[in-house]
């Protein structure tokens, strides 16, 4: 068999370990040891949107706040940082199908055969948000000309239910599929470690009583039917450990 040398050189053959390039090595006569050989995660940087435009950003904030509405005990999707989480994920590898099989041909198949789209989530969000905005603005009546962000919460919920059930069709985008993806991304952002931008102050973990990254429960295995009392810990620690950093 002839290897396609050009493919190899264009990078498809290069293995990614975390974000570092890994070269092939010959290892003999030792257990290899390199300090810090692994790849700790990089916490997201606060600040402006990395992928979304300002308009897209406020729209996603409005969306995630309906998917996870605020209540007196726990913030909603917006204040929990779910939009920031999605923005950073779309700007990163997830946004453009990094590591996935992305070679042609692309055909739609059965549900059992799984997603077959050539488009990554970043492209899908851009198209879907624009189409949703157009849909909202094209409505008549009291809300005529209003974008999703300007609508009352009840009306926003109605639209989301329409997308979910497939009753509302978006132009050029499968709204039902997109809503599923938005739901998944929002809930992942809510529950993932706060280093990724969502779950701010571990609010989602506090809500359910998940202790996070504690890693040692030996003294709790046999304490049956007794609520675990300690507060959650993130990969980045606890605010109380680094006073002043918040």
């Amino acid at each position, binding site marked *: *068999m*002839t*290897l*396609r040398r050009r*493919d190899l050189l264009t990078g*498809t*053959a290069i*293995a990614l*370990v975390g974000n570092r390039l*890994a070269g*092939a*090595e010959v*290892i*003999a*006569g030792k*257990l*290899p*040891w390199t300090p810090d050989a*692994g790849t*700790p995660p990089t916490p997201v940087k606060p600040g402006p949107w990395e992928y979304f435009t300002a308009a897209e950003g406020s729209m996603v904030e409005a969306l995630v706040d*309906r*998917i996870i*509405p605020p*209540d007196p005990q*726990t913030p909603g999707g917006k204040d929990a940082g779910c939009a920031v989480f999605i923005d950073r994920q779309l700007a990163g590898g997830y946004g453009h199908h*990094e*590591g*996935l*099989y*992305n070679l042609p041909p692309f055909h739609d*198949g*059965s*549900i*059992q*055969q*799984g*997603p*077959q789209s050539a488009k990554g989530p970043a492209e899908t969000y851009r198209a879907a948000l624009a189409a949703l905005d157009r849909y909202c603005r094209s409505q008549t009546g009291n809300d005529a000309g209003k974008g999703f962000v300007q609508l009352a919460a009840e009306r926003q*919920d109605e639209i989301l239910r329409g997308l*979910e059930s497939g009753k509302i069709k978006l132009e050029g985008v499968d709204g039902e599929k997109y809503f599923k993806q938005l*739901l998944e991304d*929002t809930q*992942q952002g809510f529950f*993932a470690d706060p280093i*990724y931008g969502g779950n701010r102050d571990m609010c*989602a973990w506090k*809500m*359910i009583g*998940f202790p996070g*990254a504690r*890693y*040692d*429960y*030996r003294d*709790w*295995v*046999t304490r*049956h039917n007794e609520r*675990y009392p300690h507060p959650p810990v993130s*990969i980045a620690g606890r605010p109380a450990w680094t006073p002043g950093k918040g």
Partner: protein
Amino acid sequence: MARKLPARDVAIVGLGWTGSILANELTDAGLNVVAIERGPWRDTATHYAPNYAQDELRYRIRHELFLRPAQTTFTFRNKHGDTALPIRTWGAFMPPNGVGGGGVHWNAETWRFLPSDFVLRTHLTQRYGAPFLPADMTIQDWGVTYADLEPHYDRFEYLCGTCGTAGNLQGKIQAGGNPFEGPRSRPYPNPAQQQPFGPTLFAKAARELGYQPFPQPSGNMSQPYRNPLGVRLGPCTYCGFCEWFACANYSKASPQTTILPVLMPKRNFQLRDNSEVTRINLDPSGKRATGVTFVDTSGTEWEQPAELVILAAYTIFNVQLMLLSKVGRPYDPQSNQGVVGRNFTHQTISDCTSFFDRSKFVFNPFVSSGAIGMCIDEFNGDNFDHGPHGFVGGGYMGQVQTNGRPIETTPVPPETPKWGAEWKRAVRDNYQSTLKPGTGVHGSMYSYRDVYVDLDPTFRDRLGRPLARITMDFHDNELKQNRFLTDKFAEIFQQAGAQRVVKEYRQGPYDITKYQTTHLCGGAVMGNDPKTSALNRYLQSWDVPNLFVMGATAFPQNAGYNPTGTVGALAYWSAAAIRSQYLKNPGPLVHA
């Protein structure tokens, strides 16, 4: 043109469990061994440290420890006449990658198959008569018995430090263990792990219903352990980040925590990582392997000559390499002839979610290990009379809840909206008072004429090689089995006092996006007849005697257990045959 490397005695493809075992055994026999591994070198302290190993998004959701489909994937279709499409992102199973292979991210559930599993066709035919089996079911005997494998199961368990309660010691049934298991020559090397509240409650209810529950055999350490190679493991901390993750505590049996510290420093061993074997090279007769060709991440192609070639990659990659290298006759489902690609199987998993009164029950689901749990085996294999039920096969079932990680495990009653205030409230209210095992019903999948692997005519990997194509669907036998088992399973949670038990039956068609287990089996199965098996009873290729093929690739059908215990036992069994017979007289170990 490939660059030619100096010849080695042995070339091993893949350095996971079986590659590590074979490399250690054959270097002990004085051979010069090279292992060629597609993925990177990885080790506990450097690559999955306890300050960031517990990252659900990175490892569970984004699959960082696994093979990336960009590197290679498979195509899938339900039926012979359908057009297969590529698996673009993993779903039904998670192919491993890198040193340690699946041994890095498994749960460490370390079972033995039942004695009757190894002589399945003979046993079922004798008990129920041949017409009881579906006409297109292609189950067969393994060519090896439980008694043959017992010493090798024992070796693998003592390597791993498996924790459990024996149920059958030299034929004597032991209280608290699995009374259905085959006889063990000695107890487990370590006592069973302690059990959290959920499994304890399940076991009590199971006893009340007349079953004999026992702790799941676990490769998560119940105490510090020093294995026969002198490698030490530490006690499991029940961190709840085990399966899909690597263990940062040296508490989960893996090649890294049991063999590699001994293997890697040996002078007669060499590892090439980030190097993917693209074919097995044969001499002009096609009856002898001359070595392997591989390509490294710089794109350089290498030829590694070797006297003995051992395939130790993940199930389906072994099959793909044989097909690409033209070793053995490819299986043709139309004529039911040929052996490579035949008898391919997966698993039949289902679950129950049990909601308890939140004012009375607090489960702390995050306190768990990968192989935690209390199980029953009354409905596995042929442990019960299938006559009245009209199906064969079965599985163990248990409260084996391995985590409370919140992206994955925030169960809510099924009628709850998927989002909004009501969803949020339901997540909050049910998290601590719901039991949701990962693989509650761990059912078998038997083999069928129309479930197989071949090479895809359209889709190729990044190197231009055809992808392996999976043709698979559930059959009525397995769906019936699953309904029966799931109903029995639900009764136990009802007995345990659940207010509500939601059954999630496995339903057809087989869906490549829904995770079951990573236990793909078969495709180049072992047996006594070269017409229906690609390998003889020692895992040696019938066609190319200096080629041995490890792993679940050799299972003629899948049993109702996790496969790694049997995979490890078969590796030791094969290594013993190579050392004691093959090296003295290289050639076929069985004459058909």
